[in-house]
């Protein structure tokens, strides 16, 4: 099974893991996984969110230390007690959220935590600049070691971080989602460097959602699903379709049959366009985005983490100011200088993180009423009316326990999500924007949220659902846009769609 199609200098196993299992609470993140990493290879790792690939890599990198199974490095059994141990053993990781220090120079970032010192313990600046410069040039990275890190484009920052990991002596380098923020030329440059490192005998693990990228750079590809390794194959012999089938478990598992089920999208063109976005751009996050949402329609916005949808939905709620482009509401251009203006214009927003939408120390009714205080009262509060409304919403959305006085922090996650939704439902908004509305929820709570969203749609609200989870988008949307690296790349409307088609488009 181990193919060496491209990896000419493959040198046999560097790292062997066997029988790895890992639980978080009652959840099985990894179940009895065997994984072999050959030297001098680029090993692609794919799978859906929560499939276990990141967990496995964090075990290898010494971040998770509590797991079952054995790990052998160069044939010797090891057990890292910390990320520091793993680094010392030559294993380095570059995370999707770069850990560069933006206000330090490139050289300082390369030497982070181990600046060379001279007499008196002072930092040997000249030495550091020279060494860093040599090191970066050696890797073919053309950047001034004195430049401020934050002033560089993200692609270069990433290469500098990679060079730091290499400089610290890593032989096994794990890259988590490295291409999500990169432009095509930047990807070419990264891949060139990765191939060079491979040919020098280093081992690279490449975790990504972008299957085209994985296939392009990897020698071997391993697929994870639900905490298990489901397949490994030589990249030269497999194609995208084959990977997607295994990622989502086509035909293998009766439980997952629903994932490949065809869903008929029935868009509507009979109602008014409520929200219309034209050529909207914001920094590096997204460019030239145009979309529209009709009354009584759920528009799904699907894309991988970092594709720009977080910034896009914030812009639509007045939280970020776009560089270019216009937003129209019921045909009239709107300029939203802040979120209060967006709310008054009839736009509602539920962000992806519960922490950033709830007041955990405050009672439930105050959380529900916060967005409608202006409607309830001109000057004086009407707490009894607030409680009434909160209780009514609690019944409607089945929020348990049914106590409006209870602090929100003591509700369960699913119920917190409903409370966050409840605050927008007292007076129906024109546009409802939901970011990751079902993330981390159990099946029952998910079904409740889907039901609520569909109810609102039927009442004529224009709804935008942004998510990185295909199931969420498929369960709710009447029409789907696929966002990739800051641009809308595909639209599914009035057609039959399924999860594999959605994944293939992203």
């Amino acid at each position: 099974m181990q193919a060496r199609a491209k990896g000419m200098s493959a040198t046999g196993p560097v790292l062997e893991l066997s029988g790895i299992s890992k639980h978080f609470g009652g959840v099985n993140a990894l179940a009895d996984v065997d994984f072999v990493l050959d030297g001098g290879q680029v090993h692609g790792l794919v799978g859906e969110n929560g499939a276990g690939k990141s967990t496995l890599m964090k075990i290898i990198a010494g971040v998770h230390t509590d797991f079952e199974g054995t790990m052998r490095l160069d044939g010797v059994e090891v057990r890292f007690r910390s990320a520091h141990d793993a680094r010392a053993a030559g294993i380095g990781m570059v995370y999707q959220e770069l850990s560069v220090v933006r206000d330090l120079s490139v050289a300082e970032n390369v030497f982070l935590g181990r600046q060379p010192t001279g007499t008196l313990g002072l930092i040997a600046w000249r030495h550091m600049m020279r060494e860093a410069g040599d090191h970066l040039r050696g890797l073919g990275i053309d950047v001034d070691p004195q430049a401020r890190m934050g002033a560089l484009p993200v692609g270069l920052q990433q290469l500098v971080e990679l060079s730091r990991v290499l400089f610290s002596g890593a032989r096994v380098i794990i890259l988590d989602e490295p291409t999500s923020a990169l432009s095509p030329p930047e990807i070419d440059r990264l891949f060139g460097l990765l191939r060079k490192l491979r040919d020098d005998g280093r081992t690279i693990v490449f975790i990504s959602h972008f299957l085209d990228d994985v296939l392009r750079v990897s020698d071997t590809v391993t697929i994870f699903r639900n905490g298990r390794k489901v397949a490994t194959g030589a990249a030269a012999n497999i194609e995208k379709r084959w990977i997607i089938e295994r990622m989502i478990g086509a035909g293998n598992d009766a439980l997952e049959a629903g994932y490949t089920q065809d869903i008929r999208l029935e868009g509507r063109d009979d109602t008014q366009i409520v929200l219309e976005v034209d050529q909207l751009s914001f920094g590096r996050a997204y460019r030239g985005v145009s979309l529209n949402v009709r009354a009584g329609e759920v528009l799904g916005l699907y894309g991988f983490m970092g594709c720009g949808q977080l910034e896009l939905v914030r812009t639509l709620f007045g939280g970020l100011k776009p560089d270019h482009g216009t937003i129209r509401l019921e045909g009239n251009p709107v300029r939203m200088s802040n979120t209060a203006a967006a709310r008054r214009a009839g736009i509602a927003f539920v962000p992806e993180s519960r922490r950033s939408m709830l007041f955990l120390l405050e009672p439930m009714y105050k959380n529900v009423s916060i967005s409608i205080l202006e409607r309830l009262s001109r000057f004086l509060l009407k707490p009894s009316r607030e409680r009434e409304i909160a209780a009514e919403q609690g019944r409607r959305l089945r929020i348990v326990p049914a106590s409006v006085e209870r602090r929100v922090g003591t509700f369960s996650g699913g119920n917190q999500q409903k409370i966050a939704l409840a605050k927008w439902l007292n007076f129906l908004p024109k546009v409802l924007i939901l970011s990751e509305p079902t993330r981390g929820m159990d099946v029952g709570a998910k079904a409740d949220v889907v039901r609520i969203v569909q109810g609102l749609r039927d009442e004529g609200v224009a709804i935008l659902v942004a998510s990185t989870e295909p199931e969420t988008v498929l369960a709710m949307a009447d029409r789907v846009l696929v966002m990739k690296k800051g641009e809308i790349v595909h639209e599914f409307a009035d057609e039959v769609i399924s999860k594999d088609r959605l994944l293939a488009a992203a």
Partner: protein
Amino acid sequence: MSTPGTDTTPQRKPTATPRTSLRLRDHLKKIAPFITLLFLIVFFSVASPASFLTWNNLTNILTQISVTGIIATGLTFVILCAEIDLSVGSVANAVGIVLAFFTAQDASVNIANVPLPGWVAIVLALTSAVIFGLVTAFGVTRIGIPSFIMTLAMLQIGAGVCAMLVRGQIAYNVPDVIKVLGTKALGPIPWIVIVAALVLAAGHFVLTYTRFGRYVYMVGGNREAAEYSGVNVRAVVASVMIIGAVCSGFAGMLGVAHLGSAQQDEFVDYLLDSIAAVVVGGTSLFGGQGGIPNTIIGLFVLGVLNNGLDHVKIDSFLKVLIRGLILLTALIINIYAQRIRSRSLEE
């Protein structure tokens, strides 16, 4: 069903014991300022029963905390919003001096002042307070300077205004209305106490019963959530900074009358006292928790302490140190309490 935390429904772990003790500590923390106050009263009553526990001395205490109380009202808004205002004493001083500057002074006071009718002087003084607040608000919300640093700059600017207007001299006259409020009494109760009580009551009313007050708590509790709930966070923060400056200015006007003179560096102690009053009372430095009732308790703790130390035989230099230690203790309790609260939510 209004007892948060007593039910067991969504809890994953049956950890009754630690939760109960957490709640106990939470309550203990809430009543800690009361206990401190009672302890101080009992202590000083026993230590000097003849002079401390008298009607006269109660009036003394109330009078002593009045100016601080007005400043602390504004500061309660600011701290509830998770901001801070270090310029309160300086703004009070400057506004008091502006008031004196526009009032006719004796010939012996050699400042280039501009005598105007009393009400004009009062309006101009309050306007200057609003301007101080607007500048602070602009720096904090538009430019994005942390309030800690912005108000430090305003502290210096306030001192500069004071210096420019009085030029090292002392002015004594203020408009009659202010003079009455600062020095006279209504029956047995000094006017300044009544005014302070009214300001505190108004502050409590706004914070508890108005929409704006709710926004103050919500912005302080979770700024991001307030933002994503469609609250104009900047406007709320700007407003509390202005309220803080206006309260300080008003306190400065009364203070000048009460102290009988307007001069440089007159209000230096009020900064520490008003911050201490808010924090000792238990209003969270992280915002969102607390209120005027807390501030009132804090005012009494400080008032009783400052006053009581005068009644017992104690080195007057030691008083300064004791005040610092009390503030430090209150800060420790404040931070510790916040940690208990957030921990009680994590399980």
